[in-house]
């Protein structure tokens, strides 16, 4: 038996975009155990329900996380809509779907970039982020914000897309598809990239089910969970199948996310083709909420859960968000067992951690 020692990893570390702290118990160069400690970004966002009313909370919940901000706002609004028992206009449903898929694209492109940075391929990182800027431009064009949109409201959406906007979106989708095909080769075929990803960080299917991992992390191990199939927003009217891979390694995670970008492009095309022309975008809600409800959504990182409880007052009684990374951290610690120390940074990135979601 080699000598055991403990290496503190984080909270500030060059490969980590966000602070998380891991104590790595290593033996020679192998990681035996990883013990996470979190709380560096804990703000106590859920407690703000005592001080902000249910409408103001929309904007607070959006700031749970800046990457999937649209999804959080939407999750909260859908929960409140269930409490109020209103059906939002069809056009609003389609608009939500388009924005949601745009944010999924930008999130996955961001992740591909960080992955490339993680294995030291600076150029690829820049290419991914360059493509991502195109998506951000679309978001800015349609809602005015680059990362935080604030277009959701309880009962619908605040902004509309004109047909010119949709034409521009379609055109950009074609461009992005072309450019993705170019970088896809590097991710899937490059010798160096493959040697860093193939067979690294194996996470068997049974373990995924046991630990309740979600999102692309689970889909890369052959578990076909996709909350979009539950049918919120306009997803029931759209034709798609979850992307699944059976490889269970880091390469599979990269494959699933990259393929999901194509899938998002496809969903956006379908949504734009099917969007009804209505002028109403909001079903107004009256009075204060009363009752409780929950909603599950597929965020770019996996299943997110929203719960709200109201008792007829402007302030909610309780609001809870459970985010995908929270479910995946258990999987991460399991995956890190028996890996090389030099792979740890990369493996943390492969679950696409979003710490500010997790700690809220």
């Amino acid at each position, binding site marked *: 038996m080699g000598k055991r020692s403990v290496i503190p990893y984080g*909270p*500030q*570390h*060059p*490969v980590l*975009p*966000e*602070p998380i702290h891991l104590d790595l118990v290593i033996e020679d160069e192998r990681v035996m155990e990883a013990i996470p400690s979190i*709380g*560096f*970004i*804990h*703000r*106590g*966002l859920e*407690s*703000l329900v005592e*001080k902000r009313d249910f409408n103001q909370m929309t*904007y*607070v919940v959006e*700031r*749970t*996380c*800046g*990457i999937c*901000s649209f999804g959080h706002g939407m999750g909260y609004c859908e929960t409140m809509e269930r409490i109020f028992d209103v059906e939002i206009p069809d056009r609003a449903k389609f608009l939500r779907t388009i924005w949601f898929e745009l944010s999924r694209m930008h999130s996955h492109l*961001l992740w591909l*970039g960080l992955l490339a940075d993680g294995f030291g391929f600076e150029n690829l*990182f*820049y290419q991914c*982020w*360059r493509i991502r*800027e195109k998506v*951000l431009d679309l978001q800015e064009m349609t809602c005015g*914000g*680059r*990362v*935080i949109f604030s277009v959701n409201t309880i009962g619908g959406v605040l902004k509309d897309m004109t047909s010119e906007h949709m034409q521009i979106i379609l055109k950009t989708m074609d461009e992005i598809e072309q450019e993705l095909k170019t970088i896809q080769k590097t991710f899937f075929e490059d010798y160096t990239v493959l040697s860093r990803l193939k067979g690294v960080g194996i996470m068997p299917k049974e373990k995924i089910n046991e630990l309740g991992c979600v999102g692309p992390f689970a889909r890369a191990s052959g578990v076909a969970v996709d909350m979009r199939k539950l049918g919120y927003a306009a997803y029931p009217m759209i034709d798609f199948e979850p992307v699944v891979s059976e490889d269970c390694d880091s390469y599979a995670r990269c494959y699933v996310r990259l393929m999901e970008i194509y899938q998002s492009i496809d969903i956006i095309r379908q949504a734009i083709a099917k969007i009804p022309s209505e002028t109403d975008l909001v079903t107004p809600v009256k009075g204060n909420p009363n009752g409780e409800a929950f909603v599950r959504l597929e965020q770019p990182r996996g299943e997110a859960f929203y719960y709200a409880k109201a008792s007829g007052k402007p302030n909610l009684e309780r609001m809870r968000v459970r985010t995908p990374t929270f479910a995946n951290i258990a999987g991460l610690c399991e995956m890190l067992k028996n890996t090389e120390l030099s792979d740890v940074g990369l493996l943390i990135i492969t679950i696409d951690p*979003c710490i*500010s*979601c997790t700690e809220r």
Partner: protein
Amino acid sequence: MANIKKSPWVLHYDGSSCNGCDIEVLACLTPVYDAERLGIINTGDPMQADIFLITGGINSQNEETVRQLYEQMPRPKVVVAVGVCACTGGVFKDCYNIKGGVDTVIPVDVYVPGCAARPQAIIDGLAQGIEIFQERLDEHRAKKKNEKSAKGVSA
């Protein structure tokens, strides 16, 4: 050190931000905004950094980390707070775990407002940070010089 103005190294730390500002900071470094053309390089090592760029407010857990990182940086140093969270606590000001902006722990030189702060604003904040950095460096040198000449007289 003569050309420091042309190559400031930045240390980025995510306080308790929502990530919105972080990804905009990273977007600054990538091809479209390309802060590297100003010689700005993002480093992970506080001991090599000139500018401390911090996003998000201060909470009880990260307070010590932020202070340590600041102390590890060599003098002169400049702190740039990005986003309203880092300036005042922003939307999360009333949360029980938020103590306030970054200036509750370390002195801040440049405040970049916005939620999320736009890349243009962040680059502008960095550019102002560089000016302040140069001033401090000049001051420091003048002081050294005075000390030397004072020593020369007494000797």
